[in-house]
């Protein structure tokens, strides 16, 4: 009997811009990750309340429904999610948001224009100890 293929690591991609969401999803999938795309902050919060958390999270900050910081606060308070790597990928280039995220304990903060989809995929694979 052939061995069952290993389950791909699941990455929750929270991104509301359709062009970027499509591009990141395509590249992450190409990089061997299973992508679950959510385009609304509130839906992302509801998803994180469910019993099967993702293996990694890629998070935009400016989202409809609830902001990326609402999601970061939720992740910080929920012990089940504490060990999940979170990569913040935002178009906000100001230091204050980066500092705010660092204060919450999230230091993987990247500007979208400076992180190519390939870099993002490699980074997530590193955080998931796949490379």
């Amino acid at each position, binding site marked *: 009997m052939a061995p069952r293929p290993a389950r791909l690591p699941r990455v929750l991609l929270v991104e509301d*811009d359709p*062009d970027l969401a499509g591009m990141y999803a395509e*590249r992450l999938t190409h990089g061997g990750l299973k992508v679950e795309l959510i385009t609304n902050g509130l839906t992302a919060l509801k998803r994180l309340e469910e019993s099967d958390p993702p293996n990694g999270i890629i998070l935009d900050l400016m989202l409809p429904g609830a902001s990326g910081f609402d999601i970061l606060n939720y992740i910080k308070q929920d012990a089940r999610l504490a060990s999940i790597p979170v990569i913040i990928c*935002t*178009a*906000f*280039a100001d230091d204050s948001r980066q500092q705010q995220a660092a204060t919450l304990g999230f230091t993987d903060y990247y500007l979208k*224009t400076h992180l*190519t989809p*390939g870099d993002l995929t490699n980074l997530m694979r590193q955080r998931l100890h796949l490379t």
Partner: protein
Amino acid sequence: MRRYLYPFLVISWWLACGFLGFLSFENRHFWIAAFIWIIGGFILTALVNRLNRAEKRVNRLEHSRRKQAEYIALAVHELNTPLAALRGRLDMLINENLADLTRQQRNQFKPVLTASRRLDALVSDLLDAARIETGRFRLRRQPTDLRPILNECWTEIQPLLNQEARHRFSLPSGDLQINGDAMRLRQCIRNLLSNAAKYADNGPVRLVLKKTDSHYIITIADQGIGLNTDEISSLGGRFWQSESPDRQPGTGLGLFIVKQLIHSHHGTITFHSAGLGHGLEVTITLPRSTN
């Protein structure tokens, strides 16, 4: 501040007036006590009103500065979002070749990638200038070695230089430590070198660093189209544009940002040109690390 200042003023007033009034009353000079009380009351009210007005003005300015900074952050966010999609897709097409493009097709896309990088640099310049204007510019200073920064910038600029010309790159031996923000110092050197390469008119470019006891002196110079001597004093001003037809128009923010960055490092920057056709020499001084 206000929390402590106003009660302090009022309590001081009561104590002072009470004391003077008591002395006057003791001496049976009741009218003098009343006079001091009333005049003092007027003066105190006027003073507190004036302080209140000044404070409201400061609060209004601070509020407007915060709004301005937030507006700029949002504007940059809106510019960066489509730019990230553009750069990301181009990177997947050209550098990762995920669409199996032919070499010719990839080459055709390369100028688009270069243009998107320029657009990214322009957005960054606008954001830096806005940060400087709104007083929200922060350096991340730490012990930094200038040598790799200068080496890296000099290597980067090579494709833009005429390889026939006799360029000069000279660094002294020993450590080149500085307490500075490496990313911002790299931005300054890169900007000045790319200007030198752009206006060198195929002539030589020079990057020389010298050490004194207290400072590093970095000179970046070309022998190209130069500047009118009367324009030199305006160089590094915000939105400055040369009147020379040989100079390419830009946003006028690059040198403004460089100047502010060097000043933030407690350094100086000076420009010298012997006139049109005689190139431009930029001299930066930066304090050496004391430890």
